[in-house]
């Protein structure tokens, strides 16, 4: 089955008149990009999209998934009903509430243009936004921030020690993570800045860190302990809280990148309960924390939750799933026009599977990112298709996912 989950008409309505001028300069006063927050959450290790968004009504679902299949809505451990025979994993209760209030949209079968099955190469393509491995040395979000007109806010922060590839290429991107050590002396930092005057690597890095620390300190984050440093389902929430506090601070960044590890479920993945369910619950708690922490900014926020590729439709020999292709992507936030699916659904019929084993990549993940950058930040198609996503001129943003 191929469901055209969104009509052309809806697309026209969403992508319409406001952007006829087609350039970032056309942003009106009511849409200051600085107030339009964007959070990118990368689930590293490859999320099993069929476990998060179960097509329980697909005739092939139960047979294809075996023990990994979730029960229909209403049964013990059953999915939370979406539309058209789809259901959310029972541990995604907050996301489900967002769906019912129209603030969650799902693109069910996404992938980057990468078609092999290496995590590392796939994350490279997901983050560079290029059409192939090593196609660019910096990231699409970094380039998007640089492409924003100078009067708009274009600071971004990654909640991690180092800058993820997706943010590289922007001079105003920084990284921050909670610390449990006494902060460095201001005098020592200023002497180090002198010493780094001619150092192209250390100079900008330290300058950027000093600035972010000032924001964190003004937001009362000095006392945060180091718990957020250990990644894993228990840590997702702390990372999200940190992002929300930094972003909602006075002068806080417009964009944040979070990386949640631990999705490579090769063994004993579980279904309604188990290892993957724990991670999904952690993700759900983190998204709730983002909403709570962003508070008044939430109505102007888009959060994209994505992964490098999906996993095999069938269970492997050890109760898990192996590396696959299509997976689910989520857009949530007050600025999302949700309660619906975007893109196409390829179905689980054996013939519809990619290489006979994976959910087919019916939707290019770049079309989701482009939708956010065009409709939320007002970047034009030409900039998106050439600069932000090299070789992206043939990719069409999915319309109607963002409130305008």
């Amino acid at each position, binding site marked *: 089955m191929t469901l055209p989950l969104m009509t052309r008409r809806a697309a026209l309505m969403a992508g319409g008149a406001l952007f006829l001028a087609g350039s970032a300069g056309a942003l009106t006063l009511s849409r200051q990009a600085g107030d339009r927050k964007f959070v990118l959450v990368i689930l590293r290790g490859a999320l099993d999209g069929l476990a998060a968004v179960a097509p329980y009504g697909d005739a092939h679902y139960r047979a294809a998934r075996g023990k990994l299949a979730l029960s229909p809505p209403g049964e013990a451990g059953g999915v939370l009903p979406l539309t058209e025979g789809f259901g959310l994993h029972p541990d995604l209760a907050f996301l489900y509430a967002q769906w019912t209030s129209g603030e969650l949209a799902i693109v069910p079968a996404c992938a980057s243009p990468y078609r092999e099955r290496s995590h590392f190469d796939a994350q490279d393509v997901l983050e560079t936004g290029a059409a192939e491995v090593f196609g660019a040395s910096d990231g699409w979000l970094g380039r998007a921030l640089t492409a924003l007109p100078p009067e708009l806010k274009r600071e971004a922060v990654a909640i991690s020690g180092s800058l993820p*590839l997706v943010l590289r290429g922007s001079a105003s991107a920084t990284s*921050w*993570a909670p610390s449990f050590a006494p902060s460095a002396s201001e005098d020592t930092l200023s002497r*180090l800045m002198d*010493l780094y005057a001619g*150092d192209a690597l*250390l100079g900008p890095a330290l300058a950027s860190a000093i600035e972010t620390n000032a924001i964190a300190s003004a937001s009362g984050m000095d006392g945060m302990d180091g718990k957020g440093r250990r990644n894993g389902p228990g840590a997702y929430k702390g990372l999200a809280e940190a992002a929300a506090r930094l972003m909602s601070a006075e002068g806080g960044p417009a964009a944040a990148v979070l990386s949640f590890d631990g999705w490579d479920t090769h063994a004993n993945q579980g279904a309604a309960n188990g290892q993957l369910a724990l991670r999904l619950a952690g993700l759900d708690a983190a998204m709730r924390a983002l909403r709570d922490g962003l508070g008044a900014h939430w109505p102007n926020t888009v959060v994209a939750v994505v992964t490098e590729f999906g996993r095999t439709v069938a269970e492997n020999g050890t109760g898990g799933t192996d590396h696959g292709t299509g997976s689910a992507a989520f857009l949530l936030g007050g600025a999302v026009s949700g309660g619906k699916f975007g893109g196409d659904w390829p179905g689980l019929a054996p013939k519809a599977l990619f290489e006979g084993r994976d959910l087919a990549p019916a939707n290019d993940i770049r079309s989701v990112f482009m939708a956010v950058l065009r409709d939320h930040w007002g970047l034009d198609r030409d900039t998106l298709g050439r600069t932000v996503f090299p070789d992206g001129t043939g990719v069409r943003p999915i319309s109607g996912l963002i409130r305008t």
Partner: protein
Amino acid sequence: MPRTLAASIAVNRFGLGARPDEPEAATTDPKAWLAQQLTRASSFTLPSGGLPTTRSAAEALGSYLEDLKTKTDGKAGKMSPEAQEEAILKPLKELREILIAEIEARTLHGLTTEAGFAERLVLFWSNHFTVSANKAVTIPFAGVFEREVIRAGMTGTFADLLVASTRHPGMLLYLDQAQSMGPNSKAGKRRDKGLNENLAREILELQTLGAQGGYTQADVTEFAKALTGWSLAGGRTKLLVPGADPGDFIFVDRFHEPGTRTVMEKRYSADDEGQGEAILRDLANHPSTAQRVATKLARHFISDTPPASAVEALAKSFRTSGGRLPALHETLISLDEAWNPEAQKFKSPNEFFLSALRFTGLPKIERKAITAAYGLLGQVPWQAPSPEGWPDDAASWAGPDAVIKRVEWAQGLADRLGTKVRPESLARAALGPALSAATAQSIARAESASQGLTLALMSPEFQRR
């Protein structure tokens, strides 16, 4: 005797960093000092008193799993947080004690060893064959894997190292090989269990040919089938092979997929343990593997973007020596590109941490300070986030937050040492001619010895090697 630039490069770039009490040989004949570390097994040995053997690690895992089963009784999901703490987290914490002891032992060894180049090579290869303790079942094995496989294999060939790594419980468990069964094997047909291709894929992609090395999905599946049956004794599988002790490598015939396998267009008919091993040995000696290993080694010791000439020289050494590691490592010493006066590499957190401690001449450091430092600096040993291991480029390690965390840690260390150190003379001794005038002046003008030490450790030249 003052350090020449070559002597400074030998201890700082090839080694773990200068100590005030560095042996004289490192200064008089740096290249010979590096080369003599390569062929002696003792250079690579870690004093392992009190640390587990593979067998005792397997026993520790066995009793942990037993304990967990008794205490949770399959009801973990329904327990109160307090009961979960008692039943799940406490046993895990006890298991982690093994890892913490391993971390302490390796750190203290790194702090004082005179064979710094050998130790750096151990860290490099241990990262190439990553066994991360980010899974409960690998926690007790990560350290012993490094000691019994990596350290023990440093004077042999790459092929032997690859085979030993693949047979070790740490790797078998980390990459889900131990329970993989052929769909047409005796056990696979009877049970609803089957193939897991994780280990086969990561060997091809990360440990041998590389993602661009010319293999296909079919090669992954075929190789995974050839490896079925490779497992370890412990728990119930101990009963499958009579006489096996916990942690022993075992080949379980009833897990093995019968038949001939084809990998990289070559047929492997031996329908037993030898099938997987023959494939491993061919992969080890494949030109793509030589290229990949050479590139990684050059990237690690020379530059994030190493010159093609250096990569080619290393690849050639790998090919012509049949993957003999001492020959490969000696080639590295002989490369002009490796002696570039300009330090190109930004130190990883672990390299920064060890070199900073060595710089101060401290004889030891307490356990708590060790684990806290690794956590703060962002590189806890044996906790690499994925089978790819730790990254090896400045872009991954010199993020804004990472840099300021280094300042915080350096300042903490300097504050503890107080006025006990003379940073200017330490910097001169450690860096020799590599110490810049600007850094020397900044240290000299510091308001305290403690600030001077922080500035020395955070100076551009000390952050690089």
